[in-house]
């Protein structure tokens, strides 16, 4: 290394020049910037995007889930945690007391949806998990999982596949 390189000063100036160049360029070309102001701005999702999970409910508002834990068994990321309890006398024998999905662990593979024998979990909200400032807030409980309705797809991929559309 020669003297110029050894004092680093020239290299720092070079680096700052690159930063400055980008800053000035981007100030005048804001339209072509690839970044988005997520979550205020969101990229349009492809038609087959399914989104985060939803626990389906019966007409009376009770969960369809029977806490059989087949979703937790199928889950490759081990992100589903269920605690079962005795069902109500008029309902199914078993129902979930706790149903948590750790969205930070989830890989959106939808194997849970496939495994469910009761159609109790679906990935059809079309939503992304919003950002949060603690890990705790990424653990979605029954309330979060039943909060949002299903979206209507203009071109439902499943129905397409089985020839109903």
């Amino acid at each position, binding site marked *: 290394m020669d003297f110029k390189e050894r004092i680093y000063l020239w290299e720092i100036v070079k680096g700052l020049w690159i930063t400055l160049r980008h800053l000035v360029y981007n100030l005048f070309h804001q339209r072509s910037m690839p970044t988005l102001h997520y979550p205020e701005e969101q990229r349009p999702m492809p038609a087959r995007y399914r989104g985060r999970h939803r626990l389906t409910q019966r007409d009376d508002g009770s969960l369809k889930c*029977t806490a*059989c834990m*087949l979703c937790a068994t199928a889950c490759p990321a081990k992100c589903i945690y269920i605690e079962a309890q005795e069902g109500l006398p008029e309902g199914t*024998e078993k129902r979930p007391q706790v149903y948590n999905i750790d969205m930070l662990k989830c890989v959106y593979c939808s194997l849970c949806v496939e495994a469910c024998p009761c159609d109790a979990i679906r990935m059809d909200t079309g939503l992304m998990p919003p950002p949060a400032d603690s890990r705790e807030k990424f653990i979605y409980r029954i309330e979060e999982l039943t909060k949002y309705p299903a979206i209507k797809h203009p071109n439902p991929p499943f129905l397409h596949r089985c020839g109903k559309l």
Partner: protein
Amino acid sequence: MPKLTVDGRPVEVEAGQTVMNAAEKLGIEIPRFCYHSKLPVAGNCRMCLVEVEKMPKLTTSCTTPATEGMVVLTKSPKVKEGQKAVLEYLLINHPLDCPVCDKAGECDLQDQYFAFSSTPSRMIDQKVHKPKRIELGPTIKLDQERCVLCTRCVRFLEVYAHDHSLGTVNRGDRAILTVFPGRPLDNIYSLNTVDLCPVGALTSKDFRFKKRVWFLKNADSVCTFCSNQCSTVVQHDEGTIYRILPRENEKVNGPWMCDTGRLEYRFINAEERVKCPMVRRDEGQERTTWREAMEAVGAAFKAAGSRAAGLASPRMTNESLFAFAKLFVETLGSKLAGFVKADAGLVEGAPADDFLIKADKNPNTRGAEEIFAAWGVEVDGARSVLEAAEGGKLAALLVMDQALLERVPNRERWLKALAKVKFVAVASLAENELTRLAHVVLPLASWAEEEGTYTRFDGLVQRSWRAVPPRGEAKDALGLLSQVAVAAGKQALPLVAEAVFKALVAKVRCFGSLTYAAIGKQGAKAGSGAATHKVEIVNLAKDKGAGGAEARTW
């Protein structure tokens, strides 16, 4: 001795044995629901059908006696067709609610359907519906829909528990398993029926919906709830124990176990466990670190010298008891050590019977006596400790027995004596009266959290494997004792159970030449060459009367 051939292979069985026994002798598996090797034969599930030459129809192998010259086929097309038909018949009214059934994953009906049928149901009519979720008693729930009426549970209760409360009533598809009205099934062996049930009809209320069985991991263990020491399997997942099942061991418990022992795990999972060391300061006990707690213990034991004493527990493993005796006799040079035997104390838990439950509720009384005798500790060591404490001669005391105050006969006298000791360290699982009067409380691992051996009352040495890691900062007894030795400025004690056992065998002659490999999963006795230590088998039931009164002054 009839000779017959099963699937073309000749076999000779004793007279009176069945075709099923002959096939088992050859290692040929015949599917079954109602047959159980330890129960009387019922022959009502029809799953074990085999073809016997010169017999017009298929016959049930569990009821057919093996006779001379029989030619048996267990896998012929006709048999396979029969098995398929039986399964289809059993499944006609079976609700198939496997996703919510606790038995799913370990269900005989499920397994055998996949192995012998795997054909979809042809049933088009409505299934017969029967009541679900019936409370049979304090431990068991019954689902009458799932029941296949094999009557294993009925036979078990009649033969082993002498309880005739379960029975089947009605006929055809209306037949149900039930108890007499107003008479719940509250037998102490009732949970064995849950193990026996080939389907999910009988479910344990304790385990119900807690965990799907395929998540559970097994650790072979030994029940420490009475001196019968049933062999067990501890089933756990992610550090939590979910249930305890009996492990088949002809020398001890067969395939059975009592309900008390099965539910014993709950205190291990309990939130109230002592999770970190505690030191007594001016205002009650405060949580502290191991380092600080051991400094206090070390200072006390260094100052005490030979005026230190220790109280072990007959619930500890042989290895821990050996390390305990070694710590006091050899390392600290104090002869004041002992343990409180159950025969001096009160009856705790279920009363003894002629099946599995023994009066002495401590698993390792015999092992403790043998080991302490080998170290030259007097039999009545605990009494000497008490007397020394009363005389104000004790400077430091280590108590490894958390149930000490429940077990000693004269509680008031002990409380007064313990108050006179300058320094009391208690290693315990839970907080209780004893830990509250301690100067230092050390968190101790439970039996499921440490490895070791136990000596049964008849001399059988059984091994128990570690199932889950200790809760919180708890240490197993070997680690804890070694820390005490180090804190007192002495050499550390070995920490590996197998190494301690080797030293134990070399020192205690009652153990003969046993090794861990020789003990294995089924346990082993020391053999003829070993010295025998005469142990009085405790009979609390006898002692309960007036005779025991004067023995309980200490």
